[in-house]
């Protein structure tokens, strides 16, 4: 157990290091010049003399060779220093972390909503006997993952906020402003978990033990809820890491559509002005979320499903989660 946990932790750290490295080199070989863009932002378009430019470069460490810059950046990053934002001059990490709670509210609400709706939907489809309705229920989640979320968001704003004047269209105040974005962000999550759960339920409902339960006279709802559901839910749990990743990505779009503040809004603004330290933080943070959730899920497997021994958990769990193939 302990060795397993340590090995997983090692792998997680490796992925994080690689993410940092890849993103660093991607962002620092870019054609733009960080010194110029910083000078442009700070100096209100005024041109700098070469000497001043050189000083800005030295301040930012841009006169060092790339490998040296990388080593310094990595050491600093390990201490939680990702450099300062080129737009505001504030430390990139704290600027980003300050915005996390707002996004966490949004993503958390969407995750909860999505999982509940997705599970309910899959159960409803499995429960339905009328073939036509059942097929419609099974087909709809495929539509849910095909519709652009920004479009659903704008439609809802038009109808719910403008026509019915029920909920605020934009902003961050309170629970009322959270309803619409969380609802929209939950759509892909719900659709995805409904699809995964439907497929897994399909397999479980044909298992011999379900047949036994039925033969013993258990009602349909009991078979579905007590016997089948618990065994079918594992693939949904496995996909949680991926779901979390989707939510981080999706919140970028939702925060733009609903003009909310949060890490998504910060990321978009950073990309707009080539604020590389902040972009670096955003990418690494997303990787931390994904890796962290996966690590948690992997370690929780034996608790959720006692049949899984840790040795097999490594194989099946990771393969399905798509972490180590």
């Amino acid at each position, binding site marked *: 157990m302990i060795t397993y946990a340590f090995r997983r932790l090692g792998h997680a750290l490796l992925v994080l290091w690689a*993410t940092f490295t890849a993103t660093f080199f991607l962002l620092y*070989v870019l054609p733009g010049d960080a010194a110029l863009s910083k000078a442009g932002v700070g100096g209100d378009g005024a041109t700098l003399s070469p000497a001043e430019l050189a000083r800005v470069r030295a301040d930012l460490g841009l006169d060092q060779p790339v490998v040296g810059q990388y080593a310094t950046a990595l050491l600093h990053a390990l201490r939680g220093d990702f450099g300062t934002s080129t737009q505001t001059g504030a430390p990139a990490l704290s600027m980003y972390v300050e915005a996390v709670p707002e996004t966490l509210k949004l993503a958390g609400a969407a995750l909860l909503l999505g999982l509940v709706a997705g599970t309910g939907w899959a159960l409803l489809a499995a429960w339905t006997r009328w073939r036509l309705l059942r097929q419609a229920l099974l087909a709809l989640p495929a539509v849910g993952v095909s*519709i*652009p979320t*920004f*479009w659903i968001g704008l*439609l809802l704003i038009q109808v719910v906020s403008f026509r019915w004047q029920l909920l605020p269209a934009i902003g961050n105040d309170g629970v009322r402003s959270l309803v619409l974005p969380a609802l929209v962000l939950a759509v892909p999550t719900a659709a995805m978990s409904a699809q995964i759960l439907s497929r897994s339920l399909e397999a479980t409902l044909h298992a011999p033990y379900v047949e036994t339960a039925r033969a013993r006279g258990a009602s349909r709802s009991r078979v579905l809820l007590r016997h089948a559901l618990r065994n079918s839910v594992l693939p949904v749990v496995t996909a949680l890491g991926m779901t979390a990743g989707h939510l981080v990505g999706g919140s970028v779009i939702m925060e733009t559509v609903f003009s909310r503040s949060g890490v998504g809004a910060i990321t978009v603004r950073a990309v707009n002005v080539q604020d590389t330290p902040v972009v670096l933080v955003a990418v690494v943070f997303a990787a931390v979320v994904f890796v962290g959730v996966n690590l948690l899920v992997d370690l929780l497997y034996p608790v959720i499903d006692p049949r899984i021994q840790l040795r097999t958990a490594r194989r099946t769990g990771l393969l399905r989660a798509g*972490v180590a193939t």
Partner: protein
Amino acid sequence: MSLTEQVLPRLEPVPPVDPSTAGARADGDGGADVRPRPPRRTRPTLARLARQPGLLLAWTVLALVALAAAVPELFTDHDPLRPVGPRLTAPDSEFLFGTDNLGRDLFTRVVYGTAESVQAVVVAVLVGLVVGSLLGLLAGYLGGWVDDVLMRVVDVLLAVPALLISLAFITALGFGTVNIAIAVGIGNVASFARVMRAEVLRIRGSAFVEAATFAGIGRLRLLARHILPHTAGPVLVLATLELGLALLSVSALSFLGFGAPPPAPEWGSLVAGGRDYLAAAWWMASIPGFVIAATVLSANRIARSVNRHQVSAF
């Protein structure tokens, strides 16, 4: 990536289908006819399409989109960049999709924006296909430390949500439709690499590869002539699946404002342009968004049917 993840497991266990049963299934089983049917592999596709109105509709939508991308003049006489009518006219018989805040015909702008969006999608899928397949091929064929290193790269690509990978690339490359396309393509590399690697591993162990090796064929030739063709099926099916997803990502990035600069029409940026007029002109954001949704749905519907008929198609 979501759809891919879900459909991928279905790629592997497709059993070799007996042509006769395949024919029976396509005929819509449950007929009184119990005589063994002669294998009819070349049954007319159109007849099969007619029985699936959804699929037919999907093909029609994609055909229209392709046509609009190739010859936009066919659909409209207006200029996409010039005002042709009063501002903010609701959709009517003259302006099918209404006009925007500058009096430009929205239908014309959507039609002319098609080429840009379709191009971006094709480039994105191609980038993912080529780069991903190459990584998967090398990893699966060479094995050892190459495999280890390449798969760690894939781990990284999987660990970061595709949208953020794209945003990082856009930060590095700058704005523009082509850059969006490349950025989305890089985000898709991981799934192609994984499918390709699995296929190569599967085929590398088969007897005919062993025979070819013993016949003294060079490694490169073995790879190109004997292994690569056998991996085409699943990888191409994945490519069809990625088309719809790529359009979603491309239009999302263009919606965020990282695409072509303002006057040029592009599906995602048209939706973004309508955002400021949500209360005054519902059509400006809704209709281009609907076009995107319809196209993605069609592409996904077709991809699913291709996936299902994979065995008979390849």
